[in-house]
């Protein structure tokens, strides 16, 4: 059936001299990434996986093998569980908060017209503020007699001790984190502007109300960027560190009870690695985080196949 003689050895397109030259040049261009990948990504991953099965001592440089002890400890460690619980609590409030408020603001911007650029700038200002400066600023805003409590008092609400009451430190962190949602607004606003206006006109003629238009036109059309925003925020919120560290674990005067109540996963990992120098255990914590992030990402990708609408099929 085939016209090709069976004796012909299969030739790759890259075996010709000019193609080989091209491949060599490609290697040259890719070399920074290739070196970086082995030295700063793949190598460290394997190394940290190895360390996680040892009780590595950075001062002596010894790494006695302890098997799965670090992982067993992780499952029994109340602090690790607290940190994980707090991180889940944070994520479950932060991600929906970012997406709902961000989408609301992006929708507002679509109705502003020419002035939208100014408001977009305003909403993005917190995103260029350094995390530690945000931490410092919110130490003031959330203090007992700070701006937030002054506002709450003015409208007759009760004024919690955001920074010291263990019941209120996690909500305080969520409030702080929702101040920076400019990137979410910009991405969703750009997506909303790409929704074809004729769709709305057609829907209006068919008698669709505002909610039906939103539900059946806006959401499907921006589902790609919406999905992107959810995934990125989810992954970032599992790894939040700097602002929280500046407000609590990195500030001795925060006091042990607030430091404990505000303990999140990466700050805890950091404490174990660079304050207690238990790098074996910290590596096990890091790999557990990796698995969590991986699972969350894969679940999201699977879900996206079900609800993200792709224009090009």
């Amino acid at each position, binding site marked *: 059936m085939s016209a090709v003689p069976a004796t012909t050895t299969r030739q790759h397109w890259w075996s010709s001299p000019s193609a080989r030259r091209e491949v060599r040049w490609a290697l040259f261009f890719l070399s920074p990434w290739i070196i970086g990948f082995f030295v700063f990504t793949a190598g460290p991953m394997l190394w940290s996986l190895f360390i996680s099965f040892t009780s590595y001592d950075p001062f002596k440089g010894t790494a006695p093998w302890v098997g799965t002890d670090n992982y067993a400890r992780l499952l029994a460690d109340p602090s690790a569980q607290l940190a994980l619980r707090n991180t889940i609590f944070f994520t479950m409030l932060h991600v929906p908060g970012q997406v709902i408020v961000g989408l609301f603001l992006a929708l507002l911007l679509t109705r502003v017209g020419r002035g939208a650029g100014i408001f977009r700038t305003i909403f993005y*200002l917190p995103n260029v503020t350094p995390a530690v400066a945000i931490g410092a600023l919110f130490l003031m805003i959330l203090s007992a007699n700070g701006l937030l409590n002054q506002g709450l008092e003015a409208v007759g609400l009760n004024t919690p001790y955001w920074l010291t009451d263990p019941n209120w430190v996690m909500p305080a962190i969520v409030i702080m984190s929702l101040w920076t949602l400019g990137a979410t607004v910009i991405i969703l606003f750009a997506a909303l502007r790409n929704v074809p206006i004729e769709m709305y006109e057609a829907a209006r003629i068919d008698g669709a109300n505002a909610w039906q238009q939103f539900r059946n036109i806006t959401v499907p059309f921006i589902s790609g960027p919406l999905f992107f925003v959810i995934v990125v925020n989810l992954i970032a919120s599992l790894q939040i560190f700097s602002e929280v560290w500046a407000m609590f674990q990195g500030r001795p005067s925060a006091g042990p009870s607030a430091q404990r109540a505000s303990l999140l996963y990466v700050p805890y990992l950091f404490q174990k690695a660079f304050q207690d120098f238990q790098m074996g255990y910290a590596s096990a914590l890091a790999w557990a985080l990796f698995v969590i992030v991986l699972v969350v990402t894969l679940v999201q990708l699977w879900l996206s196949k079900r609800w993200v609408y792709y224009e090009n099929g």
Partner: protein
Amino acid sequence: MALREEGIDRSFVPGIADPAQVTAARRSASGWIGRVVFGLVLIAFSVLFVFPLVWLLAASLKPGAEVFSSSLIGSQIQVSNYTRLLDLVPQFGSWFLNSVIVSGLAAVTVTLSSALVAFGFAYFRFPYRNVVFGFVLATMMLPGAVTMIPTFLIWKSLGFYNTLVPLWAGNLFASAFYIFMLRQFFLGLPRDLFEAARVDGASYFRMWRSIALPLTKAALIVVFIFELRASWTDLVKPLIFLRDVDLFTLPRGLLSIIASSSITGEGHFELLMAAAVITTIPMLILFFLGQRYFVEGIATTGSKG
């Protein structure tokens, strides 16, 4: 339709108003109120985002005892808070300089190395290109915490612990996010341009430098600005790699002020706010100068992601 066929002109029939006119009238009445509510909501949110920064600046200029007072302007405007801060923290100048050096080097190196790699992916054909690019994308998902400890050990064993080198030198090896972004822009360039240069005997490196880079200047500026911001605001690397106070960058220095007993412990919050202002202002200037690039960069990564 039925009405017209019967020859009845609706506008002359009492009691039967044109539904289109009714909705238009209702819309303009509710439109007036709607627009006011809309404007108020928009302004309320704007205040929510801007006011903390205004408050930060105001607090840095107040007398210490009035930091938490409700008025924005204290009994006097104390610019001297800033000079007092520099007196109390003599290293502040070095911190600023260190931040400038580190973020400048970080931004330059990551822009050039990522552009090199991105061009490699966009222009050349080589075996397993898509598989390799898949690896690039996959590294974006990798939590920094997984590689943090070995990366620390590597730089330490190379003798760079307690130097500024680990804060930027990793950027020599390109960054997945920027490779992804720049590749999109290089793919947008017409291939004919490069073929013409090749006929003229230009090397691939020259094609990259003299054709690809100049034509994607806007994208390169986006990368440069993004990394300048990322590096300037980073706390993790300075926290891990720096021990000497003189070597601190601004965020690391600001953290030491937050934790200090002599400033924050004594309740000199106006000085803490002054330090936060100095840390923040360069980013605000950068943002206002490069606003277009910020917005473009964020919007395109979001829609292409």
